[in-house]
Structure formats: structure tokens, C-alpha cells
């Protein structure tokens, strides 16, 4: 695990940030960040060369999964008691509705703030595909957010 200890603090910060932006709850975000780091620890040799975007991707997927689980128990749209800014609730709903690949590109590109070339590398797709997924995903997100 050479390098994992050195990279841990920065990657945990990234995972927590991505998770918190999506789930909006500290306990859930901490759990997602810890799970992401445990997975990174398990397969460090494979992920170390693209550890940050990998962390963004896994944390983003886990966060959206958590939102979906929560929505099944209590639909987001019917949760006015949650003291949550409206835009986060909308973001959760809109992200949950995106196709997986579009969502991963959006999370990596716009929440994880990763460059397009890095997104292409970590997802194993072409740069053009990243651009098209980002554009379509962003358009879908905006339409969804506009619909409220």
C-alpha cells in the first residue's frame, strides 16, 4: 500500500466533499467517504495512478445510491420536513434520474471538478463521448431543475 497513507487525507477530503454535496448529511457523507477509502485501500495498486477521479466516481455513485435508498423510504418530493435547501433536493432528484454514464460524467466533471481528459481516462471512454455526455447530462439536469 505504498502511497495510500500519504494520499489518504486528500482523497478522504475529496470523497467527503462529493458525498456531502449530493447527500447533504454529515453522517451519511462520512460513511460514504469511509467506504470509498476502504475500497481504495483494497485495490490501491490498481487505482493509485488515477486515485482522485476514481475517488470522485465511487463516492458519487455511493452517494446517489444512498439518495435513492432514502427516497424509497421517504420520497424526496414529499419530504418538506427535511431542513434542506431546495437546490440540493433538486440536485439529488435530477442526478438520480440521469443514466448512469451521464451521471458519472456530470459528477466527475462538475462536482468533482475533474478535467475532461481525466474523466475520459477514468471512465475509459473517448474525449468526445465525455463532452457529449457532459452536455446532455447538464441539459437534462437544467431541464429537471427548471421543472422544479
Amino acid at each position, binding site marked *: 500500500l505504498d502511497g495510500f497513507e500519504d494520499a489518504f487525507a486528500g482523497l478522504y477530503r475529496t470523497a467527503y466533499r462529493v458525498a*456531502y454535496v449530493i447527500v447533504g448529511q454529515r453522517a451519511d457523507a462520512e460513511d460514504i467517504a469511509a467506504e470509498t477509502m476502504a475500497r481504495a485501500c483494497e485495490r490501491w495498486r490498481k487505482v493509485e495512478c488515477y486515485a482522485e477521479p476514481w475517488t470522485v466516481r465511487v463516492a458519487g455513485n455511493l452517494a446517489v445510491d444512498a439518495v435513492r435508498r432514502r427516497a424509497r423510504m421517504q420520497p424526496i418530493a414529499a419530504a418538506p420536513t427535511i431542513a434542506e435547501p431546495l437546490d440540493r433536493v433538486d440536485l439529488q432528484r435530477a442526478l438520480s434520474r440521469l443514466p448512469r*454514464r451521464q451521471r458519472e460524467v456530470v459528477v466527475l466533471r462538475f462536482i*468533482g471538478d475533474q478535467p475532461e481528459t481525466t474523466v475520459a481516462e477514468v*471512465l*475509459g471512454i473517448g474525449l468526445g463521448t465525455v463532452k457529449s455526455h457532459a452536455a446532455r447530462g447538464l441539459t437534462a439536469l437544467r431541464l429537471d431543475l427548471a421543472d422544479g
Partner: protein
Amino acid sequence: MTADELAHLEDPDPPVADAGLLTAVRARARRRRQRRRLAVAGSVAAAAVLLGATALIVHDSARPAPLVVSAGDPAPEDAPEGDVARCFPLVTGSRPDGVARPATPRAVDVPSWPARLPALLVLSADGDVWVVDDGRATPWAPRSRAGGVRYLWARWDGDGTVLASRWVEGAVVIDRVTASGAVQVVRFAYTVAAAAPPGVCPIEGKLATFAVSPGGVTYLEHSSVWDHSCPPSLPTEPSTTEDPWRCRSKEATYGAVFTDATGATRAATQRGSMAGAFGHVAADASGSDVIAMAFGDAPPGLQLDQPMGAPCCVIAPPTASAVSISPTGARLASTPDGHGVVVTNTSDPSSGLQLWREDRSVLGTASTQEQLVVATDAGFAVGLPMLPRTVAKGPFHTDLGPILGLAPTACMDLASEEITARPTG
């Protein structure tokens, strides 16, 4: 939208990753590994199914010359979920949930590999495409980056490349695979029928298995709900109101679509319909358009057909696995009981005879005009007419060692490909 625009959603006071948290994360990683080991130990029974997912095909023309394709690897994919997973049993049955695939495969030597044997294509239970040639097993289109690709089905194409299918969200994708990489050939989108009843494959579209013949590629189509003929009911039988499925099937594999290598349709037929059953291509004949379709539970029922040709063939044997067809479609090899290797003339279902028995479970067979290759979980057995079979140690279960079995006692007339002698012992 930019990261700055989302800044107000961030936690203004995020936790600090200290040494204690690092220790907790490492403990969590250890627990994950332990759970995986337990899952492996508890899945011995599932392993037979897992290993049975291995498909094995021999390319019986010239040895393939690897074609260099300058393109990136296909994207890693997730596995289908829910009832959609029923439509792609080869991938979903390959590994229990939570069990990681092995590390990226590397080329290995296969001791005792017979000389002059055509290159052998093997699709492993992990969905990796391997080619065994000249005593060396080489992974084609090796997995890379995060996740990797899990192929469901693979066939040699006539130019020495491999066509392999994989699942992506909402579609089946066919890649052309070579030693140096893979490129997407065609993407067949499917829809999930809203009216699909639970417990059956719900997709409307092409399945992942296909057959390759000199004229093109044949795919099977699937429907989630299939209306069929409805004879008048007897007084004692329920009406269609009482039983909505009396005149319709919950699913059907209803026909074949014949395409060229790019996926463009050349012909379509509803021959080979299997109302009420999920079916898939079990084997094809490289020199003809005879295909074997399997349907139902293990051991699956078999049906031979020439979907685009004249009515063909017999249903023989009625149930079997590890099926392969000789190049002309005249001979079928299979194992009805998982151990006995049986060859049957497709024109005569009573002609089946057992060539030999494997102690280990037979995973797959492959036929050329002259050779029959059998894969078990201990390696490969290669049968040559009139000669004892050769046993070659395979690359996937090297800890089990080679099998030494009975010599084949049947003779084959190579000119007609039909069995001409009974076993003598």
C-alpha cells in the same frame, strides 16, 4: 454548472482525516476482504454454475492472424439488475455479488497443448476472452482501467478476429476483439416492457448470444409477453379472465435476425419460436447456418435449426449442455449428464454415442472436422480420431492438475463427418 456554483452545498466544516480515521478505514477494508472470502467459501455449490458459464469455441479454419485495431478499450460496465439480469444469465451467473474478479489476466503456457490444433477461443467465467494457440493462452483485449469489460458471449469471425457481446445499460453491444484491443461494432438497444410480469426476462430486443456463419451473424430476439394461439377452453379449464396467461406467454424467444457484421438486417424470421421460454444460442456451425438453441433450466433443452434455411435437423439430444456443432452442421457434441462426451449425427437422433467420460465436470466442447476439444475445470482434453486423447493443462484452474482419462473408442469418417463405428469398450 461548475464546482464553484455548487460551493454553497459543501460542508463549511468538513471532518479532518486523521490517523484514527485511517486506522478505521483500514479495518473496514479488512472486513470487506473477509466478507469476500466468506462469500467465496460459501459458494462452492454455485461454482459449478459459475464454471458452466464458460463458453468454448474452436476456430476451424486457418489460424487467426491478429488484426491490429487502433482504438481504446471498451468502457467498463456494471451488471444488469433485477429481472433484467435474467436476460443475461452468463454474466450474472459468473460471480457471486461482492466477489472481485481476479487480477488482470496474463498470458500463460498450456503444457501438452497439441501441435497443429487450430487456435482455441475461450470465454472465461469472468468474461475474459482468451485464445489458446501454440501452447500458450493469451488474454485478448485485456481489461484495463477501472472495472474492465465482462463479455457474455464470443465467436470467431471469418477474418480471425472475435466478435464478443457485452451488456451496457439498455443495450447489447458487440465488439470486435483482437489481441491488441477491442472496438465496438454495433449497439442493439432494448426496451424493458412495462407489462412484463415479475420473474421473467422483461426485455424486448436482441439477446447477447449470437451465431456466426459464412453469410453473417444470427441473433435471437426476445419478447416479454407473447400472445399465442388459444384453443377453445374446456368447461373445466379457467377462462382467460380467470387466467390471463391462458392464451399468452410471459416471455418468448421468438425468432432470429440475420445481419451482416455491422448489424444491418439482411433477413428476419420467426422460426425457432420458443413461446414461454427464455432461450439463447448454445452453439453454431462455422461452415453452415445450423445453430443449436438452448432453453429452460439446467440441463437446458436443445433445439437445432437453420433459421434462414430449409427446415433442418432433429432435436437431439433433448437435453444437454456444453454443446458444439461441427463445421458442416452434421455432427453435434455435448454432454447430457455433465461428464460423458457424446457425439450425435444431427440427421439421426438415435446415432448418439459416448466417446469418453470425464471425471471432472465438462464445461464446454468445441468441434472441428477432425478434433473435438473438451474443457473441464481441470484443463482441456483434445480428442483426435483413432488416437488417445491428449490432456492439456489449462490456464484457469492450474491447481487441480491434468486429467488422465479413457482413450476414445469411436471412429469418425472424416469425409462425411458421420459416426461410422460404435465404441468397442
